[in-house]
């Protein structure tokens, strides 16, 4: 049965430390790598970040932590304690990959960094994920998600037509996601090279600032090739020249996104759209042949003509309920999307057809919940929820005694001294 099959990274041993690698750790863990997250005895930062189950702050009740720590095991270890050094060294020794999100120079400063261990374990793949990378004048600057999305460029492309309103930082911790996705590509590529060349470790220096800076699509070529600075616009692409709206508030209060302003990409689809508009007597002058010629990607058509077509289509969809616009537009092969709140996808049976949701536990909550699953369906090596997010220190005994072979008594001693 496919669900019992091993995932694509079965057998890979990963050690994760710090707060800037937790998404990378999750992606590897869900793919069946054995990921052990090392947290300070008080817990990782995300354990202290809400929202919490029942809004009660609890190191095991953070939904932020739950979202980014599925399928991992977790141990506690105070790396600032001298007594932690041997335990840490043993954890590193059993690992193929270390995901180091502790911050620039932090582990090095404790004598527990890559330099020492790469000498001892030459096959180790050590991936550092830091705000700005480990070199350069900004290396030690302070950063948060907001600061990253400002510096990297997404914010200057995102917001409203009205520039009295500020550039907008989309919610969701995207700088961590973007950088950690890149980090996973780097780690997997390094492992591939290792396998292809019979060994050899790697130190990888991932910069969150660079990862975000590479994630702005059209803003980059506009500047490099044309000297254009794109201007942010409500609910659509930033552009050098103002474009007609793509996003409309429909009759029921819901929003619809009409990709590219709703202009169909070919004449057949345009005819279908006009027939639908005619049912509502809403086509205005769009039957004029000059408009039927307006194809979605034709750059020879003037912006004003395209904007007029968009405006007529926009006025039409605003008269209908959003769901109807979405379903009927898609039936005509128009790439139109309804603007959903995230939780509204729980009610869309399409995702059930794909078995997208993972039914599992959230600590501190009595009922099973549906986690967003993996965005990829592997035919033979399923990526799936391996275990619920770990409690703080849940696997101390299992890992320290079971995997590392420490004596139960010395683990108890470390606990008494507050090292774990």
């Amino acid at each position: 049965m496919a669900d019992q099959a091993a995932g694509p990274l079965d057998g890979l041993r990963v050690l994760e430390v710090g707060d800037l690698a937790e998404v990378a750790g999750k992606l590897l863990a869900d793919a069946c790598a054995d990921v052990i997250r090392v947290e300070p005895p008080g817990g990782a930062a995300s354990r202290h970040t809400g929202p919490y189950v029942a809004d009660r702050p609890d190191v095991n009740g953070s939904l932020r932590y739950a979202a980014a720590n599925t399928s991992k095991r977790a141990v506690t270890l105070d790396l600032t304690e001298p007594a932690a050094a041997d335990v840490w060294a043993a954890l590193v020794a059993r690992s193929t990959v270390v995901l180091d999100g502790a911050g620039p120079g932090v582990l090095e400063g404790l004598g527990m960094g890559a330099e020492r261990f790469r000498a001892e374990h030459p096959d180790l793949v050590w991936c550092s994920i830091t705000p700005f990378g480990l070199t350069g004048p900004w290396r030690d600057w302070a950063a948060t998600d907001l600061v990253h999305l400002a510096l990297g460029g997404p914010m200057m492309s995102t917001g409203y037509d009205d520039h009295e309103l500020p550039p907008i930082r989309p919610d969701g911790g995207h700088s961590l996601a973007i950088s950690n996705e890149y980090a996973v590509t780097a780690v997997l590529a390094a492992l591939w090279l290792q396998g292809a060349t019979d060994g050899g470790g790697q130190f990888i220096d991932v910069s969150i600032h660079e990862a975000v800076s590479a994630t702005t699509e059209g803003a980059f070529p506009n500047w490099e090739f044309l000297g254009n600075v794109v201007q942010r616009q409500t609910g659509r692409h930033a552009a050098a020249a103002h474009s007609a709206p793509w996003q409309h508030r429909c009759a029921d209060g819901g929003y619809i996104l009409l990709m590219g302003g709703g202009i169909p990409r070919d004449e057949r689809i345009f005819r279908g759209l006009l027939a639908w508009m005619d049912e509502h007597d809403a086509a205005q002058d769009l039957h004029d042949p000059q408009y039927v010629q307006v194809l979605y990607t034709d750059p020879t058509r003037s912006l004003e003509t395209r904007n007029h077509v968009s405006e007529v289509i926009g006025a039409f969809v605003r008269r209908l309920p959003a769901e109807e616009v979405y379903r009927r537009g898609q039936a005509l092969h128009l790439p139109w999307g309804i603007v959903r709140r995230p939780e509204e996808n729980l009610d869309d049976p399409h995702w059930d057809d794909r078995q997208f949701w993972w039914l599992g536990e959230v600590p501190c909550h009595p009922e099973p919940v549906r986690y967003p699953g993996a965005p990829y369906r592997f035919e033979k090596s399923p990526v799936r929820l391996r275990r619920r997010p770990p409690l703080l220190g849940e696997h101390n005994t299992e890992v320290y005694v079971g995997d590392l072979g420490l004596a139960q008594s010395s683990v108890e001693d470390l606990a008494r001294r507050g090292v774990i």
Partner: protein
Amino acid sequence: MSVLQKMDRGDDPRPLPLEGVRVCDFTWIVAGPQATRILADLGADVVKVENESYLDSMRIGLQTDPEHPSVNGSGFHANFSRNKRGITANLHHPRGREAVERLIARSDIVMENFSAGAFARMGFTWERLQEINPDVTYISLSGFGQVGRDRSYITWGPTAAAVSGCTEMSGLPDQDPAGWGFSYLDHTAGYYGAIAALMALHHRRATGEAQYVDIAQIETGMVLTAVPVLDYQVNGREYRRIGNGSEHPPLAPHGTYRCAPDDLGDDRWIAIVAETEAQWAALCDVLDAPSLADDPRFATIEARKQHEDALDAAITECTRSREARALMYALQARGVPAGMCQRTDDKMERDEQLRERGFYPTAPHSHMGSHRYEGYPAQFSDARWRMARSAPLLSEDTSEVLRELGYSDSEIAEMKAELAV
């Protein structure tokens, strides 16, 4: 040695991590090319297969010389397809199809991002791909995925963002959703596409098993919405936009503040966050605003959060006469998380960090000449990524690739004359 490998040889002896990995790349627009761009940057031999009668529309977009539009003149395409080789093949011609099948036969990965079902209708079902090459991994990247009742629906990046919840999660609470001002989910779907390809290669190396991976672009956005999805199920809370603020943890100031105009106008902003009382004190000091530091409404983090609107207005009074970059440096010197909202010209011409790290290397293009491109955001100790060449011209590498596939020069000439390639 291919043209690209020759161009790639610098004086850096370190290997490319994916050297030897072969990708048969049917992707177009943005999401698929973003995935194969990562593989190509890391050294995979990515051969982009194109069809002159069904062009990648990104070859048309963002013309670098708008007076003389050309399929080889798109800066957009140049950035997303650098380090790849390009061939054209006519799948309706038997010899064109045969050439593509030979390419598939020697590839490790086939990737496409057509609408669901389209690749199969072109004759390349998973079963057929396995007949051609039992070791090939097939990565399909479509909007809603190849399975599910709405699989015939189609997406572009913004469509996927809307349905996934990512659009709704951006913007001010009392305004329309701001969405994303670019196709964020084309990037993201590309990142997950590259991850999936590499995971599948690992599985194949470990087990000998090749496989098919079905990626839905919208799901690559849905995985980024896990916190509100859990919050709704556990606490019954519907998602509500938070602008640039921070509710978890509750922080103030945590926002974006207008700065002094520059030569492009007054749309200049800086993001500032104070996570600790020490940072708050340093902020007041740098802003030279003792009245802020002394105001009882702003005395504690709870009080500041409670009076956030007044706080933001008071901070803006201080920032709007300050030059954004200088203020950022002054705040960072005192340990305050701060970053100006950079435009691309800021990043490419004035960002000392990106400059120091060599993030915008140049690469040649056979039509557009030499330009800078976005780098790969990581550095390796004992390997490297490359910026060997910009995107291929349409069909630039057809002859070279066909020779590698075993065709003679006379056969290639015939195939070109017959419009098979």
